[in-house]
């Protein structure tokens, strides 16, 4: 096991784990950042989505060896106090039910809006359909993304 330096939420962490350890388990078991969830371990459900240099990635599919040198953001580091427009919009649209998939959904939405400040419904559907919410919060998520997009385009002071 070699030491690897990872950048998570702007902070450097040196971890000593097997090279093939997925980032997901480094976040959860080694660093105690449990906001990122395990849902399937095979990249199908999206619960473990984090940002890598602003892009949405599945942390269960990124081995430690491929994680060095990239800047990762997890739900815990998205904003101080839940103030990111996506988090605010999620609360304002009353999206969450059980809430388990929501960190992954919010991270996916953040990456979508970063690249497409004005996404079409078709694009929202396409991007968000890579993730699973068994409670069925999709209608509210869709509205939250519209709302967050609007806030990001014309932020209120």
């Amino acid at each position: 096991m070699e030491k690897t330096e990872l950048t998570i939420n702007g902070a450097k962490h040196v971890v000593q784990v097997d090279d093939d350890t997925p980032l997901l388990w480094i976040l959860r078991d080694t660093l105690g950042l449990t906001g990122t969830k395990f849902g399937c371990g095979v990249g199908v459900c999206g619960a473990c989505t984090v940002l890598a240099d602003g892009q949405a990635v599945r942390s269960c599919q990124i081995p430690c060896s491929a994680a060095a040198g990239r800047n990762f953001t997890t739900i815990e580091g998205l904003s101080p106090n839940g103030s990111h427009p996506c988090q605010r919009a999620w609360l304002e649209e009353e999206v969450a039910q059980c809430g388990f998939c929501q960190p992954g959904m919010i991270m996916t939405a953040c990456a979508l809006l970063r690249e497409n400040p004005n996404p079409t419904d078709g694009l929202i559907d396409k991007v968000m359909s890579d993730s699973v919410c068994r409670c069925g919060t999709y209608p509210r998520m869709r509205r939250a993304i519209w709302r967050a997009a609007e806030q990001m385009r014309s932020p209120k002071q």
Partner: protein
Amino acid sequence: MMTSRRKFLKTAALSGASLVIGFNGVRLLQGAKTSAPFQPNAWIRIDADGIVTLTIGKSEMGQGVRTSLAMLLAEELEADWTHIKLVQASPWPGSDLGTGGSDSIRSSWKPLRQAGAAAREMLTTAAAARWKVDRSSCTASHGAIIHSPSGRSLNYGELVGDAAKLPVPQDSPLKDKKNFKIIGQRTSRIDGHDIVTGKARYGIDVKIPGMLHASLERPPWDGAKVKRVQEDAARSVGGVRSVIKLSRGIAVVADTSWSAIKGRTALAAEWDDPPKDAFDSETHARRLETASRETGFITRSEKAPAGTGDITKTIEATYHYPFYAHAPVETMNCVADVREDHCTLWVPTQAPERLQNRVGELLGIPADKVEVNITLIGGGFGRRLGFDYAVEAAEISRAAKAPVQLLWSRADDMKHGHFQAASVHYLSAGFDAQGRPVAWKHTKAGSFHNISPLDPKEAHDVAWYQDWSWGAYDVPYAFPEIQTAYVTVNLPVKHGPWRAVFAPSSVFAREAFFDEVAQARGADPLAFRLEMLKGADVIKVGSTVDRRRLRRVLEVVRDKSGWGASIAKGHGRGVACNAYFGHTYIAYVVDVAVAPGNNVRVERVVAAVDCGLVVNPIGVEQQMEGGIIWGISSALKGEITFRGGAAQQSSYADFEVARMHDTPAIEVHIVPSDGPEPFGMGEPPVPPIVPAIVNAVVAATGKRVRSLPIRPEHFRG
């Protein structure tokens, strides 16, 4: 740390400066004076700082129960909403904390408000005594008692010491609903901020000192023996501590989750080939179909009154309902710390007491030596009324002699759950010479739950069988002659509660076949439903069905959906309705589009719900939307099939569930109710959505759909 009763009482007795009231739905009692026979199911505590803590056993799994229960308490207590804190209760001997059956709001409605009212009265009495004024001149509001004539006020926190010395009134007046300030208001989730910031802690997030991680390789079919297993290979994986053979498989225990997963893969376990007669879902479907022709146990029988026309024409149909998994995104998991004479569990569960008893039995210790800490649940849907995963965790911790977190993989979760059981429904309808429907017959061939043993002392009478066939025996329509029956078919694979339990299959068959009857009658399906809901307004058939409420929700979806307008080719509109236990009434109008490839897309759902008095409109809307999406999964996405005794699906790729692109436009209309009490919302939205989709697909294609999930080949050609 969660609060057990013993510790709690001690704390209450020591602190002195808190007002503590325990309640069990029958009696209220002050904490410090609790005597043995009184076994409360929940507690409220008001501290000197004015914080109100509600300790309650209901599990939060997305239904918003923590928010809605806090609303009930705050209403009668006249509490400051921002000063209410919820603490999860743990079971104790005699407690009854389980969560299921859409029952939490209904069963908490009265006791929780009574407890709040009692505390309010005690605080009022204490304030009046302090000021030496008539207590009728004092009012409670926003966490304070106010004496308007003198303009004085005291916060609850300043009064708890005095109030705690007063006897607990048992019959404090409850507010009239027209004076509600909180109940009925759109109220945000109490835990919403924790969820969007990643702070919400589910079972999977529990970490305790010295905790190891386990992954369990289970036999693929019941009774399978292992042929080959590479134990040494597993042990040589870095971080693996031990490989343990258990009654239910081979556990790999390791320092981290990843080491446990890798170690389990390294086991490369090979199992016996299943016997030729191992469980197979196709064979089972044929067995069910054969059984559906038997008379079975008659769950309802009404003979046509004299003067009813003779049956001159009969139509019949057989409806097939498949197996489904719960597939919550948080897989089954449990942290168990087994010591010599006690055990502590941290577990996302809906059934804490049954779990406690079972683990106690396993370890040979009294149930009260098993401390159960209920965590947040990442999707319940009835799956966590089973507790197999907690028993496994306890067994592994005992063998490993260490605290262990057992985490199921997604494939474990798909293959080893307790499934929604398949069933087959045989229905027929008789018409008289004028074409009027005069007889309805519905026989359900299905299986009882087998995740926990049935109580042999329970009388297997009509009520018992009706319990297994909601949606079939309580057909709300006024056919002069009605016969419903249940045929029990043995089902060896694990099956148990799933969202809406026994209703989805029966309501699917009933509402889809009702459209066949309407078609045979040449009637509009929605108008025909209203016509067949005439006669007695209220019928008592085990549960009580109020046809007026069902008619009202149908009328609302008719008017809001533009029912009757012409529909473009390739599109269809369907309707279905249901009275859930006679409590919550729901109707849907669904629009579908059938693409050239015969793929079905639900485009719009117009819904009407009457769930009695509404506690939190946001919660009602969320459950309606979630139930509709759940139904879209059942109607159009994955099913579980068995070959060789094993479930064949292993992930969301082969047991598909609805995703964002499957989501229709949804309109939810909450029908104002004059009902005096609220009813549950977790399960009721599920049963009628699937037949409404089926009926829309039939309308679009002209082809009958009698099995689920709907597949393009059902209406090809």
